[in-house]
């Protein structure tokens, strides 16, 4: 009898704990979303009236417009470059044995350990030293470095899921190495490449800390513009931008899910 009561208590408290954890995960987004529709010009919760004017302001405010455009440009360049470079490294790490392989792996994954502000500061000092300034090349390079580990990991895992016997079978059937790559390896790798690119894009689009160091007025990305805004104003425009941010990222993931399945995008699906 006592055992049953205590096991029931455990079950209930377990559910409550899980519910609380889930609530805390979504809570920030919910609070900000609600605040974005606040009628009054203060960032507060709960809202006192309903309005969409902050969305209008978010979409028309000049710094946000250029910031969004800059972010999209940097994201496109950085994640595409990171994908190309990362795929090469992933293939080298997976398929070939060479000296200093362990060290190379360590260097490639090190941006996971080094704080983003260190990367930003370091590159800023480097760029200044080379008189390159805070231009596009430095900004894109910063983002490539930050997202590269994720791309390499994603592609590496996809490579691991490809049975090398498929490539041997293709070779035995008369496929030259180039044909094996284009007809077998790359098509099977495609989901990994897409998910790697997507990860990189989402991370790059959201990157703030390192970008703060290496951007100037002309190149500032959306998160940097938002930071500049919040230092001057305290109205719900920022909340509205956040909602747009969430919507864009969610749309990207939904799209990827439709074409690939979320399991494949997140690279958690094992085997084929």
């Amino acid at each position, binding site marked *: 009898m006592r055992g049953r009561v205590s096991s029931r208590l455990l079950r209930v408290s377990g559910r409550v704990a899980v519910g609380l954890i889930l609530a805390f995960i979504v809570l920030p987004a919910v609070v900000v979303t609600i605040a974005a529709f606040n009628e009054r010009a203060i960032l507060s919760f709960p809202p006192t009236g309903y309005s969409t004017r902050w969305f209008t302001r978010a979409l028309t405010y000049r710094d946000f417009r250029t910031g969004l455009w800059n972010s999209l440009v940097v994201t496109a360049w950085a994640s595409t470059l990171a994908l190309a470079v990362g795929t090469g490294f992933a293939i080298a790490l997976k398929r070939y044995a060479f000296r200093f392989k362990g060290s190379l792996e360590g260097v490639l994954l090190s941006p996971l350990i080094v704080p983003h502000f260190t990367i930003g500061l370091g590159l800023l000092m480097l760029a200044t030293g080379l008189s390159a300034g805070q231009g596009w090349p430095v900004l894109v390079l910063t983002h490539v470095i930050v997202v590269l580990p994720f791309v390499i990991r994603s592609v590496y895992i996809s490579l691991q899921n490809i049975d090398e016997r498929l490539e041997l079978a293709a070779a035995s059937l*008369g496929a030259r190495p180039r044909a094996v790559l284009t007809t077998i390896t790359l098509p099977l790798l495609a989901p990994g490449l897409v998910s790697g690119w997507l990860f990189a894009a989402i991370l790059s689009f959201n990157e703030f800390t390192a970008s703060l160091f290496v951007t100037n007025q002309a190149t500032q990305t959306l998160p940097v513009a938002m930071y500049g805004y919040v230092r001057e104003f305290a109205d719900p425009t920022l909340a509205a931008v956040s909602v747009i941010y969430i919507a864009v990222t969610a749309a990207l993931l939904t799209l990827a899910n439709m074409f690939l399945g979320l399991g494949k995008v997140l690279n958690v699906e094992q085997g*084929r």
Partner: protein
Amino acid sequence: MSSKAAEVIPAADFPAERTAPRGEPAVRLDGVLKRFGTVTALQETWLRVEPGEFLTLLGPSGCGKTTLLNLMAGFLEADAGEIFIGGDLVTATPPYERQIGIVFQNYALFPHMSVAKNVGYGLRMRGTPKREIAERVQEALALVKLDGFADRSPRQLSGGQQQRVALARALVIRPKVLLLDEPFSALDKNLRGAMQVELKEIQRRLGVTTVFVTHDQGEALSLSDRIVVMSAGRVRQIGTPDQVYRHPQDRFVAGFIGDVNVLPGRLEARAGARATVTVGELRREVEADALQECAPGAPVDLFVRPDHLGLRPAGEAGTLPAQVAALVYQGSHIDLHADLATGERVVVRIPGQGALATHAPGTAIGLSVPQGGLVAFPPEG
């Protein structure tokens, strides 16, 4: 539809490529050797595979049989020796120029292609015209009784069907040699037997030279024209299934092919090709070849198959005294485990189920040993 389509393709319309000049073997290995680092995976090996032959590489895992197959396929490069396929030197030829067909244990079907695309892959790589590809793919699918499956995805097929696709894909390019890497081990037992018979039929019909790798001696005995028994990177014996089963050349082959009992004996005398061995009170003749190193009086091991031992009443003259230890029901027969007076455990295979009632564990029995068909080797170590 399927069986009819298969019938209307005579072997001549689906020929195996036979480019070997008269008298040349389909595959020839001259002193081929392969090392991995400091480990010699394959000792110097000489081997001839005759055109149309079904040759099996048999041995436990790590014996070098897969290395040998990979060398033939061109997936590995030999450290020494030469490989000829159809009379052509191919030692340094990459796999895509060797024209070999291969079926892997897991079939290695391309998951992103339909069955027809899988089968047609080798032809597309050769730039075969589209119409001819379509025709030959259809023929190949009919050959393996999979007509109507052309548009399926490999994922939608059972293990047996996947294997047929893999076989069709390998055969459609009219390979000079068909290589099979443990193709049956992923199938369940019932399906395995049926697929073995079918493979053998197709192989015979096409006359395609086939090299088959397996660790299953039953498979090797039932399918092969000749068996190459390997262990520790070395060829131990090459012979017909009957030769390796009845006349094993060394201790390893005798122990690996079929079930076998080892009886402790002594070499009594050697006279020409024959030798006399005693086991307890019994005296038996064996071939002397394997006992050249042994002096009279030296211990030797006498190998006897479980179905060759006979069950006699205890104390009968000319039998070995033993005691029943356990009875194992096997359906069509009983495996009776018995301990000899000298301590060794032996297995006697008795047809039918009669022994279950009459020979409870603990019963004293006599074991009869046949006069012929015995082999003896020096003890291990």
